[in-house]
Structures are given as C-alpha cells and as structure tokens.
C-alpha cells in the first residue's frame, strides 16, 4: 500500500458551545478516491475546510506526503497542492464566469489579462462537464444553482493539484452533469491524484469511492472498503441505527420487509 | 460655586481659562494664545492658563467652558464662536462666581469686553475699497461663511460703507467655510460675466479668500490686479500686499489686545479693582482700534509690533518687492 498523500490525526474543532470535530483521523492515498459521508452537521465540511486552510484546527496533526505541515490559510493549502470545491461554492457573484474560473490563477500575456485564452479555455472546461451555460460573460449572480456548481468544479481543474477535495459536488447538478463529474473523478484517480468526495448520494459514493469514512456527530464512526459494504450498512453507520427512516421508507415502497442489519457489525469507533 | 480656590487674596495657583473659537485662521494659535500666556506669566508667575479651542462649534465651546470651570478657573477669557449664544456661558460662569471677559467678540452681559469692533472692521474694509477705487465701478463681494455669526457682522459693516458709495456690487457670495478654493472658483466663474479688467475692486472678507481671489485673477490672465481687501494680517497676505497683489488687510494689533486681556484677567483673578474702562452696550470695555495695513505702512505696523519679522515677510520670492517697499 502506498504512503498517504494526506494524513490527519486527532483533529479537534470547537465552535462556541458546539464541538464540531472530536479526535478525527483521516487518510488519503495517491490514486485513491476517498468518500466522506455522514449525516447533516456531522462535521464533513468542517474537516474539509481545515484541510483547505479556511479554519485552523484546535488540536491535531496534519501530514502531507509524510511531512508534518502547518496550514496557515487557503494560500498555504494551495501551495501544498490541495484544490478544493467548497459546499458553499465561494464564487465572486459580481464577476463573470471566466473571471471566477481563473480567479487567483489568471492567464496573462505581457502583464495584461489574456481574456481570449481564458475564455476559450473556459468553454473547453465547461464542455468537459456538459455545462449548460449560455454565455461565460455573464456575472455568476445570473447563473442557476447547477451552473454555479459546475463553475466551481471546473475551477479545481485549473492548476495542477495533488489532492482534490469535492464537498457535495453533485448536489445541484443535473443527471448528465452528475455523470460527467463522476467520470471526472475517475479520470483524476487514474492520473494518480488523491481525491476526497463528500456526498449524501450513496449510489454515487459506491460508484466511485475506493474507501469510505463515516463521520457521526463529529467523530469517526466507521471506515469501510468499498467491496466490504452494502448500502444498508452505510446508512446504518450514518444514522447510527439500522431501523431508521430510510429503511422504513424503502420497506414501505418495496412492500416487503428488509432484514435489519445488526448494528454490531459496524466498528464502534475508530479512535 | 465649585471655584474652590476663590476668595483668597493671594495669587497662589490661580487658573485663568482662555477660550478661543477656531483653528482655521492662524491668529488664535499663533498670536493670541502665546501672547496672552506670556503676559500672564509676566504679571503673575504662579498663575496657570488653561487654553481651549472650540473648532468653530458653539456647543463645544459651552462644554469647554464647563470643563474650565470644573478645572477651577478663576476667570474665563472668552472669544465666543457665537457671541449671542455665548450669553449662556456667561450666565453659567457667573453662577459659579467666575467672571467672564469677552475677548475680541462682544457678549451681552459679560463682565468685561476687550475688542476691535467687528462691524467696524467690515466698515474699514469697505472704506479702503472706496478709497482705492475712487468710489465707482463694479466690484465683487466675498463674505464669510453663512454659518458663522461673525461673518454677518463683517458683512453688515462692509455694506454700511459700500452701499452709499458709487460702487456697484455685481455679485455677492457667502462663502461656506471661508474657503479660499471656493473664493477662487466663484471669482473665476464671474469672469464669464465681467472681464477681469473691468472690475474696479474685490471685497474679500478675510485674507484666505483674498488669496483665492488673487489666484483667480492670476489664472484668469488678468494683466492688472484690482484692489483686493482682506482681514487678519496673515503672513501670506502681508507678502501679497508687499508684492502689490493685495490692496489692504485689517490688522488688529493682537499684542495690545492680548496684553490688555491678560492684565485684566490677572487683576480679576486677584480680585483687584479695574479702572479705565469705557461703556459699550452696558459692559465695561476696552475698545481698541484696528489698523488698515497697506503697502506703505507694513513697516510701521506688523513689523514694528514684531508681529512678523522682515525675514518672515521677505523670503527670496518677495525680496525684490520688499526692497521696493522699503522693508529691510
């Protein structure tokens, strides 16, 4: 097994009275797609933001390519080769699509912005993702939710990262765009990058992930290899109970009883 | 009253408060204050002067008067931002047994008054202009700020002289903030109506505005400058007068005024008897005469009074003009 490109140990983060993360461990290897799943508010985005340098962890150690690092801000995370698509997208509403795609990585020729290169490259990137954007010269504020998300994802392809983190990248995407993003993730894996994907869609997770971390209420709740896990086990690990509302709905719609997985199968805690 | 030092005959640790109205003209900080302080020091070594400046804000001045009284002042020497509104300060001070000397501007009900008369200043400016123009022709009038109560008094005095004469006011302007820039802009826009050469003279209420008027004439390419009035005897204005760029300014011998005020204040602090006053609207007063400074009497006024030294005035730029004017 290759050494992890990113490795985190004992990460804690508290916001006011809320302990968002408690002793979380997390590893990503090159050429591996790691899924991070968990209920709403489980702390997934917080973990991603800590890696991306948006928040500082209260305690815990982060290693990138075996070296312990301090991440002081988004800039230093990017310098370490970490590209991130945030759940809240983080686009500048007043700028157009091209400007947002290349924000912080503008193409220039003789010191002046090279708009033509950026614009034609934008069309390429967006077409790769099957984006349905009528014009790249309208401000982001005028885009639909899915169009914005596509722009945010395309952003992460500009530049040459070692690790790509995608926080619910397909939440607002149409069926075709979702498929393209899954294809993209597979392409990233093939080129040897470490990929972290957060998603609430178990089908998507199972389709692309090699390994799955489950967070529950800010703690490592379980870790699975993709081959060892069923959807029901995953859902049970996420919700913390096997007789959950998801199972109930499925049972109702299938008109049949699904045998509940005994909860004992799950690793109780990782730490 | 809270004047806890009051009542004793000795001059031990007396505090005299000097309240001046603004900082935008130099006279207060550069002359009134140091001259007053020096004279007090000379008369009464242990006396202390509390100096306060109200930045042209009447309510701030009221607060400062209260502060001064809090601070144990035995006398207030008050140059009011607004002479009318300052009657309140007088009442409040008198309520605390602190006498008030109205300094430079009149306050009704003050214990004493030392000044040059504001209306008289305006009148002198007007008269000088009549003299310079021969009492006929077109003039511009640039008055002080419409939000400054004293400006109205200068304006009134000037009109009292000009209105009866043969001078024709083509345009009149109340300049917000007494701003030289505004004066320049106003004057140059009048050149659209009147050729600069056709103007017989310009009434500018103070030296700052006179500077703006001069700049406008110069920028407008005027071959010859008409007489321009001023007030305050700012160094820049004296230099212009020497160079023939401004006709006159009104010089108030501040040293005389400040010295008189300091003597009076020290006497009041020591509760001595005051004599030699005249009556001005019911207030015992010392009324001093302002002086019109023109090119020919610069040496006899501001220089003689050591208001400015010849070196101050005659920078390399003005050396030649000084020579011509006989300043050395």
């Amino acid at each position, binding site marked *: 097994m290759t050494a992890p490109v990113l490795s985190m140990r004992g990460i804690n983060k508290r916001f006011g009275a809320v*302990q968002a993360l408690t002793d979380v461990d997390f590893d990503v290897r090159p050429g591996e797609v790691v899924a991070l799943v968990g209920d709403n508010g489980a702390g997934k985005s917080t973990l991603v933001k800590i890696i991306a340098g948006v928040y500082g962890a209260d305690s815990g150690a982060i290693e990138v390519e075996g070296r312990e690092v301090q991440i002081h801000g988004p800039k230093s995370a990017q310098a370490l080769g970490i590209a991130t698509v945030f759940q809240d997208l983080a686009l500048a509403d007043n700028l157009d699509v091209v400007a947002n795609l290349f924000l912080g990585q503008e193409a220039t020729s003789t010191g002046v912005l090279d708009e033509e290169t950026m614009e034609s490259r934008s069309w390429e990137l967006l077409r790769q993702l099957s984006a349905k954007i009528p014009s790249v010269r309208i401000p982001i504020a005028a885009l639909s939710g899915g169009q914005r998300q596509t722009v945010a994802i395309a952003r992460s392809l500009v530049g040459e990262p070692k690790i790509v983190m995608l926080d619910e990248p397909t939440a607002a995407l149409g069926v075709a765009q979702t498929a393209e993003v899954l294809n993209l993730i597979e392409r990233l894996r093939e080129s040897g990058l470490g990929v972290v994907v957060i998603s609430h869609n178990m089908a998507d997770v199972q389709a692309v992930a090699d390994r799955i971390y489950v967070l529950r209420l800010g703690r490592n709740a379980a870790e699975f290899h993709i081959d060892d896990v069923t959807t029901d086990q995953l859902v049970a690990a996420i919700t913390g109970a096997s007789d959950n509302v998801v199972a109930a709905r499925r049972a109702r719609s299938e008109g049949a009883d699904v045998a509940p997985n005994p909860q004992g199968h799950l690793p109780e805690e990782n730490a | 009253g809270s004047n806890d030092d009051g009542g004793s005959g000795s001059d031990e640790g007396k505090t005299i408060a000097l309240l001046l109205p603004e900082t935008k003209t130099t006279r207060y900080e550069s002359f009134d204050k140091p001259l007053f302080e020096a004279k007090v020091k000379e008369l009464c070594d242990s006396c202390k002067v509390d100096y306060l400046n109200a930045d*042209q*804000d009447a309510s701030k001045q009221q*607060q*400062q008067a209260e502060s001064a009284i809090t601070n144990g002042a035995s006398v207030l020497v008050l140059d009011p931002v607004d002479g009318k509104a300052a009657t309140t300060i007088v009442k409040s001070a008198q309520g605390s047994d602190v006498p008030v000397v109205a300094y430079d501007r009149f306050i009704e009900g003050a214990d004493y008054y030392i000044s040059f008369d504001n209306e008289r200043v305006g009148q002198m400016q007007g008269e000088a202009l009549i003299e310079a123009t021969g009492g006929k022709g077109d003039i511009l009038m640039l008055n002080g700020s419409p939000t400054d109560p004293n400006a109205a008094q200068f304006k009134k005095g000037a009109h009292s002289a000009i209105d009866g004469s043969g001078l024709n006011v083509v345009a009149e302007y109340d300049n917000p903030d007494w701003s030289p820039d505004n004066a320049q802009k106003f004057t140059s826009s009048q050149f659209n109506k009147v050729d600069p050469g056709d103007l017989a003279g310009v009434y500018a209420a103070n030296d700052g505005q006179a500077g703006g008027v001069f700049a406008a004439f110069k920028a407008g390419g005027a071959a010859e400058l008409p007489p321009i009035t001023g007030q305050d005897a700012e160094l820049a204005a004296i230099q212009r007068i020497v160079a023939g760029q401004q006709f006159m300014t009104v010089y108030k011998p501040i040293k005389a005024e400040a010295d008189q005020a300091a003597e009076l204040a020290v006497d009041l602090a020591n509760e001595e008897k005051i004599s030699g006053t005249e009556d001005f609207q019911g207030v015992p007063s010392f009324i001093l005469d302002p002086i019109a400074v023109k090119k020919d009497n610069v040496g006899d006024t501001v220089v003689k009074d050591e208001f400015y030294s010849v070196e101050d005035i005659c920078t390399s730029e003005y050396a030649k003009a000084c020579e011509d004017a006989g300043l050395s």
Partner: protein
Amino acid sequence: MSFADRADERLVQDTSPRAMLSNLGRRLRSGDLGMIPVVVGLVIIWIVFYSLNDRFLSARNLVELSLDSATIGMISVGIVLVLLLGEIDLSVGSVSGLSGSVLAVLLVYQGWPLLGSILAALCAGLLIGVFYGLLYTRFGVPSFVITLAGLLAFLGAQLNVLGKNGTVNLPGDSALIEFANFTFLPPWLSYVLAAVVGTGYLLARMRTLSRRSAANLSTPRLRSVVVRAVVITAAVAGVAWYLNLDRGIGAMPLLWVGVIIAMDFLLRRTTWGRHVFSVGGNEEASRRAGIGVDRVYVSVFALCSMFAALGGVLAAGRLQAVSQTSGGTDTNLMAIAAAVIGGTSLFGGRGSVYSALFGMLVLQSITSGLNLIGVDAYVRYMVTGAVLLLAVTIDSLSRQARKSSGSG
C-alpha cells in the same frame, strides 16, 4: 437533563464553576463579548485621563460628561437604526439644526407654546425621514446620496428659517433650558430608580424563566439571575451615589438612556425590530419572507430623522440658543462615529443601540479629557485621532479573534 434545546450530544454542557470560568476564558479569546471591549476601551481612557488630571473623574466632570453626551447621543440612536439596515444618514446634523431653528423661531418669534414648538420641530424631523424613506423605496436612490442632498438642502432651510438675524436665544426661563441644564433627580429618587431597575430586571427574567420551563426549555439558574439583579441594582445605585456628590443624575441624560433602553427593547423583542435586523442582514430573503420591506425602511428613516430632531431640540435647550452653526458638520461625524465605535456594523444587520451610549461616552471622554488637560489645537487633533483608534482597536482585535476561530 432532557430539555428540548439541550438534547444534542455535541453541546458542551458543563455548568460547574470551573467550567464556567474556562468558558469565560474561551469567550475572551474568541471575542464573543458584545459591548465589553468598548467598555474596556472606555475604562482605559478614563484611567489615562484621570492619571493626567485628577479632576477628570470628579463628580462634577462626570455630570458634565453625561449632559454633553446626551444631545448628539440622542441623534446617534437614530444612526444606529439606519446602520442596522446597512444604510446611512449624513443629514442628521442639518436636520437637528433645522429642527432646533424651527423650535426657536416658533417659540421666540411666533410666540407658540413650548410644547407646540417642540412637537412641530419633531414633526419636521419625522416628515423629512418619511420623505427620505419614500425616495429610497420608490426610486432606489442610495441613501448616501439622498441624505447628502438633505444635508445641503436642510442646511439651506435652517439658514432660511433663522432669517437674517441668525442666532436666536431661547427665553431664559424656558422649561426646555431648565430641563436640559438644571433638572436633576433628587438623591432619594435616584436610589428608588436603582431599585426599580433592579426589580424590573429580576421580574422580567423570572417571567422568561417560568415561561421557558413551562415550554420544556433549558433555563439559567435562578441563583445567577438573582445575583445579576443585585449587581445591576448596586451598579446603578453606585453611579447615582457618585453623581449625587455633584448635581446628580440629569433629566436629559436619563431621557437619553431611557430612550436607548426602550429602543433596545423594540429592536430585540418586537416584530418590527426583528424585521429591521432581517432586512439589514438579507433584504432579499426578508422580501421573500413576505415582510413589508418598504415599510421597514420608511419607519427607520423616519425614526432616525425624528431622533435627529429631538437631538436638535435638546441641543437648543442645552446651548440655550440656536444659531447657524447648530448641527454643524461635526454633528454628523460624531453621531455616526459613536455608533460605529460602539461596534455597530456599517454593512447592516449587526449592532446594538447601546453602541450609541458607549460610543458617545468614548468620544465625549476624549474631548472632555483633552479640554481638561488643555493642549494646542494640533496636538488635540492628533491625540483625539490616536486615542479613538486605540479604543476601537481593542474591540476590533477581539472581533478578529472571533473571526479566526471561525465562530463569526
């Protein structure tokens, strides 16, 4: 515990004294402190000036400070309201000057009764505010421009109303002058006031407490509520005692503080106040929630101008005269600066009316302290700037801490 709002296991819920202490430390570091940093800044300013001139903290000077703060402080209350909407009012100075002039002219030249004149002055303010609000909501002109135009236009109106004689002195025996300068609570009444405030606080908290426990929500401990009530009573009584060494608690500062408490109540405890915050935080979301956004804007602009008018009336009483300089440029800057120094954001949705109180006290303390020390004008300007910056930096540093710990 099984309170509905304490069920989540991620909530850190240790109520032991040690935990509460460490919590305080955490709050200190994370900057979640409301008005405390400004108050700390104020205390530092007081200590410094006191060490330079011990009359600074004399009862007499503090009474003066309270009187001086109340006039522009009243105007600042309105400024806080417009800032909460993310708007601005540059014309409060002119409006206060105009209202003062209306009052003075009606009272002195037209012989109106005092109350009628005051009402007319306040109505003038109200009308101006409504006019602003309508301009803003109908035409979408930025409030900066509307009120800049108002600053000029109403200064012109003020000059016009005052007429060519300028300064108008109010009648020396006017009740307004009496109120603004010479009316103080008698000592016994000031202690009664302290008791009333304390009891009022206690009763209000007790009511909340019982309603919360009825709704199965977590409650603060009764003991801590009682302790707070006692502390509040003692604090008010202490202030009253010290000010009573001189003239006591003035009627005008009392009105000011009363208005602030009332506005704070309106903002935090009524539907209208909630809507002010929501419109300031996210206008579009508020509109989509069906809130009458336009009405909120108009009401806030109207209130702001009315407070400006009230400030102008009080200033007239305090100065015992109205002149062309009433409500000059400084007034605007001071009123806005007080609100901002107190921590109200210029971008809307964050702040408290108490910033008008503490911000104004900071500004007036600097002015008053420098008056007592007595320095050259240029030094005064420079020191004022520097002290102001220092006072606010304390607040900003604590906010900074909050930001970087991710909880803001």
